[in-house]
């Protein structure tokens, strides 16, 4: 069980790292300046948001529908979006 837990944690951490790299690349924002409750509207305008969401979809092989996208408000929301260990294998 411990080994499985460790593997899942590792995979999720890896996903978050990849998310932070995408944020840095697409928004030009240093991940070190972010907190879980940082509002996405404070770090991205509509164009940045479109860039980031498309990059996330491509990187993690997922699709964020419009309604779901509107509910993503904070960095924490984005982390939850990619915190599926299975995505690491995508």
């Amino acid at each position, binding site marked *: 069980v411990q080994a499985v837990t460790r593997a899942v944690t590792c995979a999720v951490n890896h996903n978050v790292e990849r998310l932070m790299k995408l944020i840095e690349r697409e928004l030009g924002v240093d991940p070190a300046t972010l907190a879980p409750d940082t509002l996405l509207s404070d770090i991205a305008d509509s164009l940045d948001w479109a860039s*980031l969401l*498309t990059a996330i979809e491509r990187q993690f092989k997922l699709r964020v529908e419009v309604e779901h996208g509107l509910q993503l408000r904070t960095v924490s929301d984005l982390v939850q979006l990619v915190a599926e260990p299975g995505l690491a294998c995508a």
Partner: protein
Amino acid sequence: LPAHKVVVTGIGLATPLGSTWPAFAQAIQAGGAHFEALASAYIDPVPAARVFEDPSVGLSRLEAKLSDRHAQLALHASDRALQQAGLADQPALRRSAGVFVGCGSGPTESIQRAYHDQMVDGGMHGLSLLRCLPSGAAALLALRHGLHGPALTQAAACASSTLALGEALRAIRHGYLDVALAGGAEAPFGACTLKAWDGLRVLAPVGDDPGRACRPFDRERRGLVLGEGAVFFVLESQAHARSRGAPVWAVLEGFGASCDAHHWTEPCAAGQAEAMRAALHDARIEPGDVHGINAHGTGTVAGDEAEAESLAQVFGARERAPWVHSTKSLHGHLLGASGAIELAAAIACMSHGRMPGTRNLAHTDAPGLRLVPATGAPLPQAALMVSNSFAFGGGNACLVVSATRDPSPPGSQTDGAARTDA
């Protein structure tokens, strides 16, 4: 509406002949661009005139994401035009300016990349739609410089930027605008774009020397040589330019346009003549008033032949005709931006008081043309020139421009105030 005289107060360049006015003007007089044998994925190497500066440098993060290469070149050329016009630090004076961009092909590199990314690599960039908009360059110029007048894009193949300049001339002349940023941009060297050009069989073979491939009006001409770049002008009403003590490098005297409505690619002398006559009429001058012509002169067999005929129709027998040259063998064919770079070339010639001969022209098959000899031809102190642009699709557009000779032509970004209206 009152008719306002329209003057050129700034010229900005991002071209195979350099990015500064002195370099450009000197290269027009003697030299020309470095032509290379450009290798690409789907065709044999072709001769090409490229811009050496990296246009992605100096852009904001968002501009870099949103701009095709032609738009990046346009951004740099527009910076330089506004700088030369003394408007770079005057946001209030340029606020109501309009933007007129001529581009024949549009953002072809970005379209190729987006489709490749999607179909081959599994996903295009999230901003691909904006980056692939034909009007993207105009929007970016307006955004960058805070220009709140209309932002228009003219697409009429190789006549695009001449049409853009002509429409800007009309907008200012008839009082709709005081200031316009007008010109053209083109970047045709994406692999798929080159393949498309190759299909039409109009590109000159590279031969032993790419620099000799473009041979306008020469009996050995074999086709056109592509070039890339952007040239933008600040146009103003004379009253507006005077009110702020702006330098004036030239006067846009007239504009005429027509469409052959004849054939997609076979040029029609009658349609070309119609555009030239319209431009002369617009400038209120007679054919005999013109001193020089910057011909469309691409170096294709059919194109040069038709232009020789249309020039003869408008300007008459060789003895009375103005001097004719083509500068495409100096800078390549910039397609939608060709009219803009050739207007700049005409102004450079008038500033120097001399038209150079056509590079690579040795033996013409158009004896009726009064072609500038290899040693060049003098222009008077106050000269009038015509610049021709003829396009696939039958579009024709011509500008009449005047300028005075100046021993120290425009180039210094700060010395313009000493000049008076041309």
